[in-house]
């Protein structure tokens, strides 16, 4: 097994997984927050848009979205982001992972919003805060604190879901594992090694988010 590891770029593959996870998590958090704001806004059309987004992306298989990004968007519709195939699929993988997990981030945040008593928004309005100020000063900070645990679960799911990028040929951890299993014999050890790699990435995050959710919980 030692010589297998020497011939393949094990750390490089996990580095790509980490990069995919980081940028997708950032994207999902941004898009998800915007969608969550749409879903709690007082304007019915905006709420409808938010709901449509969540229902579309939460109910579509990630693999399907991932394949569509390359076969559909890049090749058929010609929506390539970068010249090189490798870079193009890296960017597309980040976009798909962001867009898909944004639906879950949105729902996590909305469950956070639901932990806030209606009186908080009324008090914010009654001292003259505008809708935007109520949102940024009173509602979202409390929503994020109430949503830390489900956001943590979404982040862990996202890290594991980066493996789906392997279906479009990304050379992340799962991509490399597929290659090794294809080319080598006696690869059960390799499989466990990759599994361990993911546990090392996700386990500390779980512990971190649990302790954060305890520490930052809003006492009522």
């Amino acid at each position: 097994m030692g010589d297998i590891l020497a011939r393949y770029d094990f750390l490089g593959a996990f580095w790509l997984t980490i990069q995919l996870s980081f940028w997708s998590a950032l994207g999902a958090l941004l898009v998800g927050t915007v969608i969550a704001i749409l879903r709690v806004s007082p304007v019915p059309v905006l709420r409808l848009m938010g709901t449509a987004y969540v229902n579309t992306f939460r109910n579509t298989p990630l693999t399907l979205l991932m394949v569509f990004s390359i076969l559909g968007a890049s090749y058929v519709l010609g929506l390539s982001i970068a010249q090189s195939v490798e870079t193009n699929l890296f960017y597309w993988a980040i976009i798909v992972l962001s867009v898909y997990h944004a639906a879950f981030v949105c729902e996590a945040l909305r469950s956070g919003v639901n932990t806030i008593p209606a009186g908080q928004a009324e008090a914010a309005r009654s001292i003259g805060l505008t809708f935007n100020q109520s949102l940024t000063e009173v509602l979202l900070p409390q929503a994020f604190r109430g949503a830390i645990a489900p956001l943590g679960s979404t982040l862990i799911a996202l890290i594991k879901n980066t493996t789906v990028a392997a279906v479009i040929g990304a050379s992340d951890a799962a991509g490399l594992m597929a290659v090794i299993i294809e080319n080598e014999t006696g690869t059960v050890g390799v499989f466990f090694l990759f599994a361990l790699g993911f546990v090392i990435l996700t386990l500390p995050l779980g512990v971190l988010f649990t302790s954060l959710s305890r520490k930052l919980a809003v006492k009522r």
Partner: protein
Amino acid sequence: MPEPLVVIEGVNKHFGDLHVLKDINLSIDKGEVVILIGPSGSGKSTLCRTINRLEAYESGSITIDGKKLPDEGKELANLRADVGMVFQSFNLFAHKTILENLTLGPIKVRKTPKAEAEKRAMELLKRVGVEAQAQKYPAQLSGGQQQRVAIARSLAMNPKVMLFDEPTSALDPEMVNEVLDVMVQLAKEGMTMIVVTHEMGFARKAADKVVFLADGEIVESNTPHEFFSNPQSARAKDFLSKILTH
């Protein structure tokens, strides 16, 4: 002749089929303390909440200091800043310290410099007797302390009028007086106040006018002394007999 500060004209509101406010007309002078009283479901809380448009209404108009209450947006926010509101369940911002609860409005809405807002906040906290708790969070305070902070938070905006929606109903009995004391003091200093309450003691001590509502209508409006000792309508007599016999 004092001029009217809050003028409510022909206000109607429905909750579905229920007609909760029926053609309400009420005028409140500057410095006046008005008690809204009535049986449960009479519309007194709803009326209180329409005055800063936490509840929308279908017809009629509400004017505050000569300005008509706008429907939405920035203008409404500006007007609300001039109308203090104290809630039954305090509604202090749970993720902010007591001091931050008081400075949020002045800093964000009035654009007061932070140092100045904090200085004024400490003065107000001292006035309501909770300055020692300034760095704590709302959940660490007793109900009575939280409600006094809520009053101070409203005062920090220098409101023209203050609304109190059953401010002592959620409090343990021994904490009611500490809140009422602050309110009596405010009334004495000339604050215009609209108070939904069942505290007869407060009404007798501090109110200029008692407005009795039943089934969404103003049934009777009189001085506290006249209202309590000599109610005119059968509804008011019935209501008073139920609450004053204890």
